[in-house]
């Protein structure tokens, strides 16, 4: 074997990070580039369901079988990212009995442990289910934190020598003599960790092979080399509730439809979703009716949702792909399977493969197949180990003991930190100084914030996805300035201010879709705290110079106003 091949992986979602980890563990030299934060595209905009496969047990049994296999793998290797909530497919009286039976037998055929429970039993498990739910099928669905998972994959890749570049947008594919030989990227703020206010630059990254794992953006990358990759982006809305109305994943047991799933997630529950084809993965309408439909339709399963508090909504785009000869009209008909497009075989352009379609739950399996494919190109015979080696944080999950006394943290903050950090808890929480809580809603302490800053630079949104800070009820109203302050020891004030503004704006973006009732009260309070108490909307640091001497400089102090104002002409009722 010659020198180690260098592989450039484009895309920092679950697929790209999974591929990078796999290749790096097989000893290849890997550079991963991502235009935003890790998970920026589709992965960070999903409901975080760890599929049991039950969802596809009727329509797509091959996918269903893959899901249950990977479900078991992820419980092992990513235990600190997974909560095994269990799932229910619930049947309302108007839903078809025939479909219910098909779902049940489908699960059995695919090896998915499934059991019928009566309406009463289902309500005993989930007391807020509608009283007229007939029955349900219980399956091993779970919740998985996509942010934590992708960060752990990237960290593992890094440990195996990979270079990870976020905020680095691919601006061109380098093609020489009819072959892809690398990529050109524009670094938002220079290579390495992101630092606000730092000038970026363009870099040519030459590689022996390029993997395009950009999902809904795959067509854009293809265009750069004149390739035609017909991804059909399909948008879906997700609405986040401020509490977990259910502790089990609730699916509606009917063929397909919008608004048919609720996934409990950390302190929240996520309602999903819709499936609607869009032209542009970055620019599509986000509409009120979509949010209303989530609440109204899912209230048929869980009536209390109708009156409950939502904290924000967000939209994601699925990178659906269908081979050119199928021609479905409805995006819900398009397979969730993934496709490996070897552009040498397909388009006579060697040096690059694109990966399109696929599902989050099977990201690792996809990574394995791509890595096999890439290794095959170079005649490398190396085994895939990603199904056996735990991700950083999940090496020894027995550490999930009670750390509260050890780190002087009160419940439930200590417990939550340890759940998030897994086996990294010792390393992160063992600090010299005091470790106060920075984000009260999500129970995130200074030590966790500092650890995230170390990993991601001045980007507070990257800190957010690593820690969950600012993702609770108040949506950053009480903690964003605290998070910004945590940057200050390492970064200059203008950098901190820019990062702070960016976090505030990002938090506002999703909250706009929840502005009624309690969350409108919260938004009004947040607005008052930032604009009134802190004057951040008119911050003189961002604006024109202020003529300080024209203002009150205090009774008896020498200074502008005492000279210019009529001192105590009203009699000075206060005395001094």
């Amino acid at each position, binding site marked *: 074997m010659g020198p180690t091949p260098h592989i450039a992986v484009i895309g920092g979602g679950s697929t790209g990070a999974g591929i990078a980890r796999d290749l790096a563990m097989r000893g290849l030299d890997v550079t991963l580039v991502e235009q935003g934060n890790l998970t920026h595209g589709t992965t960070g905009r999903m409901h975080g369901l760890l599929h049991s496969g039950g969802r596809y047990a009727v329509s797509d049994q091959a996918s269903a079988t893959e899901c249950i296999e990977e479900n078991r793998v992820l419980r092992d290797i990513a235990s600190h990212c997974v909560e095994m909530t269990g799932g229910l497919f619930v049947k309302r009286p108007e839903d078809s009995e025939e479909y219910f039976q098909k779902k049940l037998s489908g699960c059995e055929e695919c090896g998915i442990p499934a059991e019928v429970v009566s309406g009463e039993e289902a309500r005993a498990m989930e007391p807020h289910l509608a009283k007229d739910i007939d029955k349900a099928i219980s399956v091993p669905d779970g919740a998985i934190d996509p942010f934590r998972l992708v960060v752990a994959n990237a960290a593992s890749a890094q440990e195996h020598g990979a270079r990870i570049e976020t905020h680095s947008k691919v601006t061109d594919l380098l093609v020489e003599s009819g072959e892809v030989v690398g990529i050109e990227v524009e670094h938002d703020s220079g290579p390495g960790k992101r630092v606000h206010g730092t000038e970026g630059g363009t870099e040519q990254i030459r590689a022996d092979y390029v993997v395009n794992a950009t999902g809904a953006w795959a067509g854009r990358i293809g265009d750069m080399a004149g390739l035609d990759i017909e991804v059909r982006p399909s948008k879906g809305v997700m609405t986040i509730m401020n509490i977990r109305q259910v502790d089990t994943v609730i699916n509606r047991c009917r063929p397909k439809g919008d608004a048919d799933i609720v996934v409990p997630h950390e302190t929240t529950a996520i309602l999903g979703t819709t499936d609607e084809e869009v032209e542009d993965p970055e620019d599509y309408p986000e509409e*009120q009716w979509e949010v209303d439909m989530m609440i109204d339709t899912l209230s048929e399963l869980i009536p209390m949702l109708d009156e409950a508090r939502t904290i924000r909504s967000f939209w994601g785009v699925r990178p659906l792909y269908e081979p050119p000869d199928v021609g479905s009209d409805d995006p819900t008909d398009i397979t969730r399977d993934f496709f490996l497009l070897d552009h040498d075989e397909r388009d006579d352009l060697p040096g690059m493969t694109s990966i399109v379609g696929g599902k989050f739950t099977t990201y690792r399996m996809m990574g394995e197949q791509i890595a096999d494919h890439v290794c095959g190109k170079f005649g490398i015979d190396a085994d895939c180990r990603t199904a056996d080696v735990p991700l950083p944080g999940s090496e020894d999950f027995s550490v999930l003991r009670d750390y509260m006394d050890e780190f*002087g943290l*009160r419940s439930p903050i200590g417990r939550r930190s340890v759940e998030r950090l897994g086996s990294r808890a010792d390393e992160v929480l063992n600090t010299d*100084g*005091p470790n*106060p*809580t*920075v984000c009260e809603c999500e129970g995130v302490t200074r030590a966790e914030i500092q650890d995230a800053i170390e990993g991601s630079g001045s980007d507070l949104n990257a800190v957010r996805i690593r820690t969950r800070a600012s993702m609770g009820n108040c949506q950053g109203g*009480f903690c964003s*300035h*605290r998070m*910004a302050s945590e940057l*200050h020891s390492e970064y*200059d*004030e*203008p950098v*901190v*201010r820019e990062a702070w503004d960016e976090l505030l*704006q990002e938090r506002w973006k999703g909250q*706009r879709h929840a*502005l*009624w009732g309690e969350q*409108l*009260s919260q*938004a*009004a309070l947040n*607005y*008052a*705290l*930032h*604009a*009134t*108490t*802190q*004057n*951040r909307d*008119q*911050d*003189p*640091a961002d604006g024109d110079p*202020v003529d*300080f001497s*024209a*203002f*009150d*400089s*205090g*009774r008896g*102090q020498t*200074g*502008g*106003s005492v000279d*210019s*104002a009529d*001192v*105590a002409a*009203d009699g000075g*009722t*206060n*005395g001094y």
Partner: protein
Amino acid sequence: MAIESEVLVIGGGLGGLTSALAAAREGADVRLVSYKQSTLRQASGLVDVLGYTPDGDGPLTDPYEAIPTLPAEHPYRKVGVQTVRDALSLFDDAVPTYEGDHTDANALLPTHGGSIKPTARYPAGASAGLASDTRDTLLVGIEEMVDFDAPHVAAHLDATGVPFDVRGETIRFPGDLRADAKVTRYAKLLDTNSEVAVRGRMVPAREALAQRVNPLLEDEQRVGFPAILGDDNPGAIRDALSDHLGVDVFEVPMGPPSLPGLRLEDALFAALDEAGASIETGNPVVDFEGEDRIEKVFIEKNGARIPNSADQYVLATGGFVGKGVESDREGVYEPVFDCHVPHAADRYDWFEGELFGDHEFARYGVATDDDLRPLDASDDREFENLRAAGSVLGGYDFAAEKSGSGVSIATGYAAGQRAAQEAR
């Protein structure tokens, strides 16, 4: 038989307290009822009158000068400049621990995030911290307190162009408080001046705090702390620290829970009590009777509905934050008397895409005539004997203008005074 009074004020925030105080000083028999803790605990405790125009001009040096240029629906335009001045005089008299009345000019105060903001009245505890004061400044943060990072605040203040040098230092607070201790714990320790262990020796807390700061002080002439310097005896604590340090000491106002806000609330309740008003807190107004006139309201207390009747009523229940204005997916409403709240039919028109955009929701509240009586959708009075004051009023964006306290005090004063005059 109902509990009777001449003027019944609903709401215990700045608007309600000023209404009740104005009515009581006018000689009326006043009763104030409030439900939850007021939003004063979330406010900085500064009394803003007007810092920016609705177009964003500012910081304004003279708030009074700009008032006549405000839009006609602005509450200040309903009551007029002279009433704003009279109302502030009432405030100055009722809360003598506040300063700023020696000049019409706004003051600029440092905020806990490091920006500065214009305000008209400030607690004595903040007065040595004015940003137009040119004395060099040391800010002291507490290692365990995440709301005030002194080096960061100092750097941000410097970026605003303040006319002095400012530096931030961080200390461990003496007394071994927990890492997540509430601000009231710090205040309590300083209020009681309990002894704490410093290198094996017991020292009173105020002295111990000063000892931590002393070695850090260079040639600065003033030292600023986050607003934790006592709840009951803030003046004595500042004096003690000033003596130990040999320089002036001030507090930087903070976010919730805000001690300056709580102290202001206490001062106003004390003034109201002294003026002879009846005060009842902790129970909500849940219903009322009356068509053109409000005959009585019902207060829910331990499950019972207690009737209260008055000649005149003041609605001072707050805005969205205080829950005096509420909303659901269909619309915006005022929950006590169901007064009309003008708003856009489509809830996606309530807000803007930018965080600090020109949000309509920020101006939602009841509309009134020039006598502060709420108007229905046809611009007729909702009730003959109801006036509204404070954040329940619409037509102004207090956060953008920095006018929240001023509007509450001015409209509270006008509503209370007129209610009393009419009841007599």
